[in-house]
Each structure stands twice: as C-alpha cells, then as structure tokens.
C-alpha cells in the first residue's frame, strides 16, 4: 500500500444516503446520484473538478467561499455547487466565461489579504488556495496590498503539535466546522464579523482553550493557517503508507506520511472504516516516542538486577534466556515458566508467543493483559451470546436511538468513537450514562445526558438488575424476540429471579446510590427505544462482579430485542489497540485461538498436527497465579512481551515481590519500563511503525499494520519471539507475518477467510471471515446467536468485599485521560504531557473540606494494601464519597493502593473499587521515595551498560 504522496481525493461535500436516485447532466456528462447529493460532489464523482475552497467532504456544505459557483439552465444567478442539490434533469455548466470572471474576481479579493510568500510557506505544494488561484488563472491583484489586511496577525504557537498562523486565514470556517461536526468539541469559533471575522479558540490561545488537539481543524485547513509543526519543520512528505494506530481499541486507520523512513505526519485515512478520516491527539500527533532517545535498540542481559546491563547480540541474548528457561524447567518442572503476551503487539506476534508457550515451553502458562481489562467481556458474552466480542460496527451508532454508556468514558479513552457518538447525540439520540463520575458526556457543549445514574463504585450489577426489573415488571420486554431467540427455560427462571421485589430500584437504592425514579425512567427510555445500544468499558469489567455485569448487560439487550441488527448491540470499548486480537489469538491459559477450550481433543489435535507437538490439555496459570506461584517459588521464569505489569497490575507491592522472586525475567519492550527494571534479559521491541502485522479493534475489525521504517533493533517483535523460540529448540521459520496469518486462518474457523491479499483489497475485515462470510461480518448474531439460543444468566448482586468503612470511608476509582495512554510509556515520551504532566486526585469539595484539603495539596491515599500520594484537584465530577485518579505516571503508584480483589470468574482485578482514606500530607509516600530511588538506580545500570557484542 505504498503510495506516492498526494492529498486524498476530496469530493467537496459528504456522501448522501438515499434510495432515490436523480439524473442530471454536468458539462455534457450524464450523472446519476442519490437524491440530496450536491452538484459539487456529483461533478467530482465523474472527475469534473469544480474549484472550491470552503467545501471539504468531511463537513457539511457551507457556501461561503463563492468559488464553486456554477450555471444551471433555467435558474437565476450563479448557485454554489456545494449547497445546491442535484435535481432530476438538471443541466449544469461548471466552466463558462462568466463563471471564470466571478471566480477570478473572488480570488482577487482573497489574495488581496494574503501574504505572497508561497515559496517559503510551509504548505507550499499542498495548499488549496494556491491550487485554486492557479485554477482560476489569477494574474494580478489590482487592489494592491496597502489596504486593510490581516498580514500582521500574530501566530499562536502554544499547541506543541501545530501552529495557528491567522495571517494566512481565508475565514472559510472549515476548522470551526471540523471542530463542531467532526470532533464535536466546539472549541473554535469565528470571532468578530465582516472583515474582522477571525478564527478563535474562544478568545484564548489554543493550549489554554477547550481544544482537545484532535487535529481535525489542521486536517481541514486549506491553507497554511493551521499546520503541523512537523510539516513546518520538515516540509511535505513524499510518500505515504496506510497503517493502523497502535493506541486505543478504536483502531483508526492512518496514512503514515513519510520522507524516506521518517514519519512526517500521521493523517487519518478517510477510507478507514473505524475512524472515517478522524483521529485524536494521540494517534495523529503522539508518534514521536517511536524515535525517542529512550528507545533501547540493543538486546541486553544481566545475571542479577543489581548488575549493570550487558549489551549483547540477539543470538547471545536469546541463547542466554533459553538456557536459563530450560535450566529452570529441569530443576522446577515444566510448569515453572510461562509468558505474558501483549495486546499492544500484532495478532501474529501474540499468536507466536502462545505457540511458543504451548509448543516450546510445553505448558499452557500463557496469559495476556486482557486478563486485567476485558477478560470478563470474553467470559460474559461467550456465556450469554456465544461469542467473546462486541456485536456491532462503530458506524452502527449512527442508527441508534438510545445509547447507554456504562463504565466507559469514550471522549477521553476512545475519542474517535466519542466523536461519532456525540454526532449521533446531536442528531437527537437519547443518552443514559451509568458512571460514578460526571464524565464529559453527561454535560458538554451540545450534549446533555437524558439520565445520569451516578452508581456507587462496585454496584453495577445492582443497577443492571434494577433496570431489568423495571423492564420485566412493567412489561416493556420484547416477548417475541425472547421467544424466538432465547432459551426459554433459562429466561423463565431468570424472569422469576429478576421480578422479585428485592431486585427493584427501590430495594437496591441503598446499594446503587441511584434515585429509583431516575433509574426507572432510564430503564423505560432504553426499553422503549426503537434501537437501543449499550457501550461499556473497564468501569464494568474491572470489578469482583465484572463478569456478572457483562452478563447483566447482555441480558438487558436480549430482554429488549436490541441485538442482531444495526443501531443496537452490546459494545465493549476495548482498552488497547489489540485486546480483541490478543484474546482471539489464544493467549488465555485455557483457550486455543478462536476461544476453543483446551479440553477439546479435536481442536487440540488440529494444533498438534500443525505444530508437530503434543499439547498439555490442562489449562495453565493466569497472571495472578503466576505471581502468587513466583512468590511461593513454584514459578521462576517469565517471558513478558510488551506489557508493563509492574505498573499496570494491581497491588504493586505484591507484583514487585513476585518479579523480584523470578530467576529469569525476559522483558521485550521498546523502553526500559517498570517491569524491565526487574529483568535479566531485555529484548528490544519494535514500535508499530517498524513491523508488518494486524490489529483487531473493538468492532472485531482486523486492520493491517504496515512497516514504514526499519526496526531500530534489527528485529520486529515476531522475529524476536521466533529467535527465542528457535533458541529453545522450538522451531519457527516464518519469512513474513502473512505466513503466520495464513497459519492462524488455517487453524481458526472464524479466521478461515482472512489473508493479507484480502486485507489489502478490503482495507480491513471484521471477523468472522470464512466461507459463510467471505468479506467478514459487520453485525453479529443476526438470525441466531453464535451459541444458538441466547442465554439469560443469573446475575445475583453480591457486594464486593472492598467496602467503605470508618477506617477507609472513601471509594477510589480510576480511569484514563485523553492525552495520556495507559501506563504512559508512549505518551509520556511525547509532547502530550503538555496537557497532563501528572496524575491528580479528583475529590469532591465536601470530602476535601472535611479533611482540610485544598486544590493542589499533597494528599495521601491509604488503602488496606498501600499508600501513595498525589496532588488534589477539587472537582464536581465525582460525588461525595468517591475519589478518582488516572494511572498514567509510574510515580503516581495508583496500583500501590489497589487490592488483590478480582472478578470471580476471570480474576480480572477490581481496579475500579478501592476503599481508602485520604489526608493532607507534606510529601510523597515511602513507596514513591523507594520507587524513585529504584528507578534512578536502574537507569544508572542502564547507562553503565557495557557493549559486549
């Protein structure tokens, strides 16, 4: 998919969906388009280019530039082709002497207030004003340049990624409209009127405005007014490669725009089905980490973590690791080693790691970071619907009438989907937010949730049960759907259970903390919606009853018939770029790729035949089991790829003890992360820019990741795993990740049809993709559920043991922020930190006042397992009794306080509920002091690394 650089084709106005077609004639060419299509788009579709400036196909027509005027037979005047819909029989001319004169006249006005510095302008060669001036043939500006102008307007360079140069602005409002229509933030406006009209970020500079730096405005700008700083510095790219973002589970498609192997700009790809040309501050701008000086590019080994690292060859490093792993197994048994795969890596890489464990280690001690995020989704959806995946496409939200967002914060954590959702909400869809916090969706410009249910942390199941109770007892359920699609007996039993008075909103109010009348109204709204969709995130899964809550969500959807078509469904918002894929690839200790249980001999034999080994039918250890066993001395060798368990897993003291107990820890990562500080072998990883492969996003979409630069370490991650496997005697000989995908497709029914050539052809594929669905499946469970009949699982509410009491009166919950990503390893190494330098503790004014805490004070947070210290932010987003923080910075130690509690079914940690006390303190905690010391020491040991190659 290497392409010479040229801007993507712009049809001027958005595509229109209509069953009615209209025919017309433009410049002698007959056209037929859906009714409502603009003359401009219709012309563009047949290759007729009408000059334009204010129109672009990502936002609605505006009609302000007056360059795209045309002549229409029988019509007075010169209508703008962007705002004029094609009508049956219309005869249009786009080039006449009169039009030429008007266009030239308008262009002359534009240029009379524009600097004539094209040759030194950052967008020289990529400027629509320049192109259009050429098209209309402007040769002189008779007005001169002494008149009123904006040429001295000052630049705003406050945003780290782009520059706003109003002297080049033509006031086309594309940026303002992109901010409104595409992003939905409404940070930009036009200030003043007439000639004084100017683009403004609300009267302040960009960095201090409401701008979320998604870059949609920069993308939309036809001139050099809003330009990426990388373009200003480096000039325009010379070629581009389509690839997939490696941040969140939205999985946006990007064009990596390059000069040689240097990424100049990441531009969201308009044909990318997950994002349709939109991006966020992370995906678009925060790619600089890939070439950050902190990158470690050489393999390293050491005997003990108190020693300096030795830089060695790949061969020596994997040999060192293999020798130690085999020695451990000889002494402590086959099960004493294991691996953790990464949902940051590609499917092919994850697949190889689990293959290495099962075929090379000879056990099933493979787990993945989905354990700590969406394992309950896998379990809950598999149990009720039969497939461990979301049911829809992202685009499905455009047909939704009522949206429930539960325990998810899309505008921060899945921003591009957040923008889609906001767009639908602005069109009139109703919104129910179930979240302890007043997230942005509860109330933001042009968005107001119809109901916000501020559930007490830990009481999700109670809320879901109460909603189901209302729907059942008020007879709002879809009897026909249930009769046709669901197991009758299970439903009857469940119905009796849920109809009990004990499940009513009133009876559960004490637990939920939600006003019963509000809850009832919300339940009615969802039940009565023509199309109701539920979107949920880690605020649902990361609980002791995470799996129960997922099943409760599936129950609600089945109960109301909201499955099996567009606009409805159960939609897990996946945290990382490839959580779905990592799960699909069989990186759970009990499942082979495609969620097939190890105990199934037929499946096992399939893999045994392909891999030429005998597989252990017993499930291996989950991550928490590995750590417990490490402390017990039973588990001694761990291969950890692309995951920072030391920072991300709960109860840091426990994790650190476990890591410290390992005889051999092999860490594969692009940076010396927190976990690597406990490692004996460091295998340098490759960023998503350095390898080929695929990611699978939250809508089951398999998207290609394409290599645009040579791996800094010489090996992509799949090559590193392969080298390690071969050193262990587990032979692997893939020449390209496509061969790995071919193997996956051979062995996995839901992937049977997937191949790289098909991905190249279609751009992306939603699984299942097989003979039954050769181009993939956009909506799941259309005629029947994957498991046959839908299953109403019992969802008894069992309060978590992690309860507030006199000693720990507050409940701490955690989440993400837009500009940082997860453990922050990537985003902290970009200028994104301009927005979020440190994690803060959000606390309600009432709780703060009781404790004498003021904005900015150091606050100690003490739980049953540990203490950490953060600066306070007084906030109305949390209610009294609940406090909140993010976990992007290692020093914050958010997981020092989180506990070992976990989901009953999957061991997913209960990150979202920790009973704590907070108090004003004067300095960081003892753990933080130790962490800082350890961190400094490990960096010294890295700096002392000796070349031993």
């Amino acid at each position, binding site marked *: 998919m290497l392409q010479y650089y040229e801007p993507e084709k712009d049809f001027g106005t958005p595509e229109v969906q209509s069953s009615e077609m209209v025919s017309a004639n433009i410049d002698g060419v007959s056209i037929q388009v859906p009714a409502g299509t603009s003359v401009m788009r219709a012309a563009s579709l047949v290759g007729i280019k009408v000059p334009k400036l204010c129109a672009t196909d990502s936002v609605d027509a505006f009609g*302000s530039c007056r360059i795209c005027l045309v002549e229409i037979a029988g019509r007075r005047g010169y209508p703008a082709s962007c705002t004029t819909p094609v009508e049956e029989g219309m005869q249009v001319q786009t080039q006449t002497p009169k039009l030429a004169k008007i266009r030239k006249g308008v262009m*002359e006005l534009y240029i009379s207030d524009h600097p004539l510095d094209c040759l030194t302008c950052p967008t020289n060669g990529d400027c629509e004003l320049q192109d259009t001036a050429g098209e209309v043939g402007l040769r002189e500006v*008779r007005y001169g340049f002494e008149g009123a102008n904006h040429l001295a307007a000052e630049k705003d360079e406050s945003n780290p990624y782009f520059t706003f140069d109003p002297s080049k602005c033509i006031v086309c409002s594309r940026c303002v409209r992109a901010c409104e229509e595409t992003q939905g933030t409404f940070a930009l406006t*036009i200030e003043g009127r*007439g000639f004084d009209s100017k683009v403004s970020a609300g009267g302040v500079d960009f960095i201090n405005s409401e701008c979320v730096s998604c870059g949609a405005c920069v993308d939309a700008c036809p001139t050099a007014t809003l330009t990426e700083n990388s373009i200003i510095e480096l000039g325009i790219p010379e070629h581009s490669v389509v690839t997939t973002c490696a941040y969140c589970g939205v999985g946006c498609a990007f064009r990596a725009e390059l000069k040689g192997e240097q990424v100049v700009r990441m531009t969201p790809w308009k044909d990318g089905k997950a994002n349709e040309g939109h991006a966020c501050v992370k995906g678009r701008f925060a790619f600089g980490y890939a070439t950050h000086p902190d990158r470690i590019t050489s393999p390293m080994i050491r005997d003990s973590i108190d020693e300096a690292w030795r830089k060695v060859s790949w061969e020596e490093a994997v040999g060192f690791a293999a020798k130690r792993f085999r020695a451990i197994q000889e002494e402590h048994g086959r099960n004493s080693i294991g691996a953790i795969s990464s949902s940051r890596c590609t499917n092919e890489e994850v697949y190889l790691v689990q293959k290495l464990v099962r075929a090379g280690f000879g056990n099933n001690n493979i787990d993945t970071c989905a354990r700590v995020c969406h394992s309950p989704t896998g379990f809950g959806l598999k149990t009720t619907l039969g497939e461990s995946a979301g049911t829809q496409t992202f685009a499905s939200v455009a047909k939704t009438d009522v949206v429930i967002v539960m325990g998810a914060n899309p505008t921060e954590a899945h921003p591009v989907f957040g923008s889609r959702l906001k767009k639908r909400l602005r069109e009139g869809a109703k919104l129910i937010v179930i979240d302890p916090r007043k997230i942005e969706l509860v109330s933001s410009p042009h968005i107001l949730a119809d109901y916000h249910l501020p559930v007490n942390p830990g009481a999700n199941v109670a809320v879901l049960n109460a909603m189901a109770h209302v729907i059942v007892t008020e007879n709002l359920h879809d009897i026909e759907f249930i009769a046709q699609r669901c197991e009758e007996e299970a439903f009857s039993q469940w119905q009796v259970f849920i109809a009990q008075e004990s499940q009513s909103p009133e009876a559960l109010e004490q637990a939920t903390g939600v006003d019963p009348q509000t809850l009832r109204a919300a339940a009615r709204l969802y039940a009565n919606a023509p199309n109701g969709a539920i979107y949920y995130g880690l605020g649902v899964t990361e609980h002791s009853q995470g799996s129960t809550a997922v099943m409760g969500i599936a129950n609600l959807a089945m109960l109301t018939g909201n499955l099996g078509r567009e606009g409805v469904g159960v939609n897990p918002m996946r945290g990382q770029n490839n959580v779905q894929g990592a799960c699909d690839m069989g990186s759970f200790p009990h499942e082979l790729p495609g969620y097939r249980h190890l105990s199934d001999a037929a499946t096992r034999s399939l893999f045994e035949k392909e891999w030429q080994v005998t597989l252990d039918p017993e499930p291996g250890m989950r991550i928490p089991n590995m750590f417990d066993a490490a402390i017990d001395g039973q588990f001694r060798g761990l291969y950890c790829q692309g995951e920072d368990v030391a920072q991300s897993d709960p109860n840091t003291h426990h994790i650190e003890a476990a890591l410290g107990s390992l005889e051999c820890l092999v860490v594969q990562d692009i940076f010396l992360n927190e976990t690597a500080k406990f490692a004996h072998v460091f295998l340098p990883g490759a960023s998503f820019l350095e390898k080929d492969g695929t990611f699978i996003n939250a809508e089951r979409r398999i998207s290609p990741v394409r290599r645009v630069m040579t791996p800094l370490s010489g090996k992509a991650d799949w090559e590193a795993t392969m080298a390690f496997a071969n050193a262990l005697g587990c032979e692997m000989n893939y020449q390209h990740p496509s061969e790995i995908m071919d193997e996956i497709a051979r062995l996995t029914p839901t992937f049977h049809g997937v191949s790289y050539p098909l991905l190249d052809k279609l751009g992306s594929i939603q699984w299942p993709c097989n003979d039954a669905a050769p181009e993939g499946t956009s909506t799941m469970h259309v005629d029947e559920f994957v498991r046959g009949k839908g299953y109403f699982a019992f969802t008894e509410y069992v309060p978590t043991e992690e309860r507030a009491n006199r000693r720990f009166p507050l409940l701490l919950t955690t989440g993400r922020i837009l500009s940082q990503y997860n453990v922050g390893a990537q985003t902290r190494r970009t200028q994104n930190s301009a927005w979020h330098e440190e994690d803060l503790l959000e606390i309600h004014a009432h709780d703060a006042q009781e404790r004498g805490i003021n904005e900015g004070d150091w606050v100690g947070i003490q739980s049953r397992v540990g203490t950490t210290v953060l600066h306070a932010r007084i906030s109305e987003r949390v209610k009294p009794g609940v406090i909140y923080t993010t976990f992007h910075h290692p020093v914050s130690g958010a997981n020092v306080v989180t506990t070992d509690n976990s989901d009953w079914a999957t061991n997913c940690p209960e990150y979202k509920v920790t009973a704590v006390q907070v108090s004003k303190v004067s300095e960081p905690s003892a753990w933080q002091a130790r962490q800082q010391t350890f961190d400094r020491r490990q960096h010294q040991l890295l700096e002392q690394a000796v070349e031993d190659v």
Partner: protein
Amino acid sequence: MTLRYLIPRDTTAVAVGANEVAAALALALAEQGSDAPIIRNGSRGAFWLEPLLEIESNDERVGFGPLEPEEVAGILALDPVARKEHPRYLGKLEEHPWFAGQQRLTFARSGLDDPLCLESYLARHGFDGLEHALHLPPEDIVDEVTRSGLRGRGGAAFPAGIKWNTVLQAAGDEKYIACNADEGDSGTFADRLLMESDPYMLIEGMVIAGLAVGAQQGYIYLRSEYPHAWEIMHKAIAKAEAAGYLGEGICDSDHHFHLELRLGAGAYICGEETAMLESLEGRRGMVRAKPPLPALEGLFGKPTVVNNVLTLAAIPTIMADGAEAYAALGQGRSLGTITLQLAGNIKQGGLVELPYGATLRQVLEQFGGGTRSGKPMRAIQVGGPLGAYLPESLWDTPLDYEAFAAAGGMLGHGGVVVFDDTVDMAQQARFAMAFCAEESCGKCTPCRVGSIRGTEVMDRIIAREAPEQNLGLLEDLCETMELGSLCAMGGLTPNPVRSALKYFPEDFA
C-alpha cells in the same frame, strides 16, 4: 361629558418631547383641578406633527401639534371654540389632508388609543380576522392569503400565500412562525410604529399564520434598539395570553399558539431571514446557504414561516374583510397597500400608507412638503441602504415592485430617504460600501472582503487617483459582489453604488 387627552408614547414622539408635553399637560390639568385622563396612545405616524396632543370630548377629537410643553397650558386655558384659532390647532386628524390622502388598512388603528388597551382593539374590529380564521380549515386560510395577493413586506416581496402553502404542505408536526422585527434599514420605522401603536394586530396575524400552517409556536425577533416596542409587545403578549388569544385553546378552540419575544443584539444582517433564524437559535447571526428554504428547514431545522411585521399585520385585515377587498387595491402584481416611510431631508416626515400604484413624485408632493433644508431635492433612496439612488428623472416611477425593478430600483421595506442638492453622491457610494463592510456577517468573501476593498477603491476615486482604472475596478468589484455574494447584503450593495455612478456622474468627475 367624557374628556380624554392623548399624547403618544411612541419612540419618535418621545424623542421630540412627548413626555415633556405630557408632563406639562398633567401639571396644567392639576392646576385646573381636572381629573380627565391622559392617554399615552401610539403615534399616528405623522412625525412632523409630533408631539401631537389630541383632545377628545364626546364625539369630537381634535389635534394640536407639533407642541412645545410651554404651549400646553395656553391651549387648555382656551375654550373649545377659541382653541380652533390656536396656531397649533389641526382639527380632526382624519380630515387633515396628510391623513385624508392616505388609505390605511394596516395602520388604521395606529394612534387612536392606548396600544395595550384590549377593549379598544376589540372595539375597532380587533380579532375579527382571527374569529373568522378559527372556523376555517388551514387550506382555506392559506388560500385567502394567496388570493389577496399579499407579498412579503420585508423587502423581497415573495408571495406570502405561496410561502405559507409550502410550510403547510411540509412534512412534520413541529412548525414555527418567525416574525422578522429586526427593522434595520436606515429611514424605516413602520414595524416599530406598528408594534408600539397596535401590537395586538401583529399578534393576531401571527396566530392566524399559526392556524394556517399548523404551527403552535411563534417568535418575534425584535431588534434591541427598540426598547419601547419590546416593552409594549411584551405586555401585549401577556395580556393577549391572559385573555385567551394566545396559549392553549385559543378563543376556547382546540387550537394552540404560543408566542415568544426574542431580542437581537444589534446586527443589521440578522434582518436577513436565515441569519435571523441562526440568531433565534442562539448562534452567531450568520447567513445560511439556501436551499434548504426556511419554509422547509427553518428554525431548529423545522418548516418555518418567516415574515416581516407588516406582512403578518396585514393578515387580520385580509381575513376580516376578505381577499377580494384587499386585492382590489393596488395594481398589477403589487396588491393592497404600501407603507412608505418618509425620512431623510424632508419636511413632513412620517408614515404614509396607500395603495400601490401612485408615483414617488405624487407621494412626495402630496405628503413630503419638500426638503427640510428648503433646498431642492436631488436624490431619493428608496428601499433602504441597499436601494438605488433615484434621480428626478425616475421619480415618476409608480410604486409597484415590477415597475421599480424595471427602473433599476426596489421598494424594499418602503423606506424613502430624501437628499437635497448638497449631497455628494461619491460619498454616498462610498457609504454604501462602508455600510456593507460595517454590517457584513463575514461569511462570504465577496461581501466580507469586497466591501472593504470597495471602500478603499471609493477613497481612491474620491481622491481622483487613476480614475479610469479605479472606476473599472469598482465595476468589476460590483459585479463580483452582485453575482457572487451569498445573500442580498453583498448582492445588493452594488445598487446604490452603481446608481450613484450612473445618475450622478458629475460627482465622480
């Protein structure tokens, strides 16, 4: 014997001293020991006679004006017969030639009584049109309006019946009536006068419009420069609501109509209907591209009737007296009455309502009384700041939309601004560009940048710099603005510029 004194509360009357006259009157009456009421009526629109005092006793009502406060006591001191000799004595105003020459339909009630007096409104055929409309199906109301030939009085002169029918036929159960009361044309005041002197008539017209198209909510978009109109309309809406003419179950029927008054923020462009809708929605007053037509996708994206105050205020008359009676007035496709507002350098300024068809010269001669300065008239700008400057050779053009258009002018909202022979038409041409620059919403380029460049080019022309090139450039610019602008603001700005150049070339030489 009932005795009443009437002094207008109208903005213009107050501006020229009506409050002081009223105070003097109160004082004089107190000294006399009289408890006769002083009614603060609306103005009859003869601003050249304001402050106008009317004394009504039994069947006789006579006027005095324009008055100084000091003159009041003197008049009161005279007996009724002697008052007739007073230099300010005007007699019965209906018989005064300035009024007798008019044919008032829309302004028939103006100035007759306290504008908020509902009884007075009812006594003078108020709500007759509504009573009639309440018994008609929507199609019949629309048909009546269509047959009356009523055209939009805001300036574009679009047939009201056709617009109403579009809204009536449009799908959707939520529709709106939006009254454009953002009267921004220089020299115009008819909307304000109507709202300040006969507010119920506008309310009645809007309720009928609601019945006709199936709208249950109306908005009046009033310019913020009209605080008195705001106060009166506000109170009138409240009283109409209390009396059952607005709100749920109008006149005990099953029909509902709610009316809300919204205040503008001082932008001329918000008189443009789509910019007004944007402003009503709480956004910047920016012009929208058409299509979609507001009749199909207007306020909040719903089918909307957008009509000027005078258009809606003509409705009660049409419904009460019938389309035929209305259409019997006027000529050609310009039917009913036109409301001219005589202003500028004129002796007898004020509001003149009469059937379409008279010539401009007839009106000026019959009502204008020459220039205020006493110098000869030289140019007349009809139709607001975007209207052409007409030289004497065109003053015989009949007041008829088509005739005016043929002469290169426009009737617009009926503003007539008179200039004497001291006017510099080059400066006036520059002013047209400057006005556009001042009031442009800034959306489209021909208007936003063109108007600024136009002022600059005019400056060079006035300074006689490279006249040939600059005049050529000006003409090109006018063409770009006329053909390229998004709305009439930029599109019509060339009118005054070109007419000044064409008819008064000596001022540019």
